[in-house]
């Protein structure tokens, strides 16, 4: 079952981020959330700065991943709304 988050990115519309084979989601910094996949691929979501020590964006992404994986297989992507901070970019490495 292939699943994606559909994340609004400022001035770029919505971008799909895979929810499959995620190993860990971390608050990389005050402006990044890092998703690490099996095999070592890393997706970095860059967002507006959050308070020091806050993990609100990581928690929001985690909750969206769980919600998406709980959906029927015909719901491939989940529109992510009400993120606590605006996303300015998404990159994979």
């Amino acid at each position, binding site marked *: 079952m292939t699943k994606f988050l559909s994340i609004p990115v400022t001035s770029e519309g919505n971008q799909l981020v895979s929810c499959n*084979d995620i190993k860990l989601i971390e608050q990389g910094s005050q402006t990044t959330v890092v998703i690490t996949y099996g095999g070592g691929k890393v997706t970095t979501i860059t967002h507006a700065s959050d308070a020091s020590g806050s993990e609100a964006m990581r928690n929001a992404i*985690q909750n969206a991943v769980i919600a998406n*994986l709980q959906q029927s297989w015909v719901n491939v992507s989940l529109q992510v709304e009400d993120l606590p901070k605006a996303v300015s970019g998404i990159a994979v490495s």
Partner: protein
Amino acid sequence: MEKFLDVPVYDNIVSGTAVTPVGSADLTDTGNIFAPVVVGDIVHAASSNKYFLVASKIDNNNLTLTALDGGTIPLTAGEVFYIHSATAFNKQIVSIENVKLIEQKSTSTTTIIFDAPSSVDIITLTHLPVPSGSEAMRDKVQDAMDAAYITNWENVASEFDARPYKVIGIGIA
């Protein structure tokens, strides 16, 4: 079927470097750094990698401690420490998909090793210490993984209660 453990990770509330202990204190620092600390909070002395609980707060610069794994008190000047809340936490999900082995790596770390070609697929849980020679935390993770896999597919993230070995950090490398 993607499955995760939903792990409470106890918040880091204070970090610093110990100065020479004052009077009966076991941990002393300056600047009222211990203002948010309460009795029962978790002290990780990073330089010596020992764990303590806050036994009492003399004032906002001085604490007394109870050693959990044989650490020496008072903490000496220069010891780097991190204090974690005993009650406040955020939850972090940890994959249990394609797990090959779970190991009690040390008294205070448990690793989850995945089947993947990359060396970055090892997740390390850092937690309050188990007794020397015990593999209690490994067993807890194994049991939680077993339990998670026999739940309905819609139960994507299963609650993981690590107590008394509270988790204070999770990393992947």
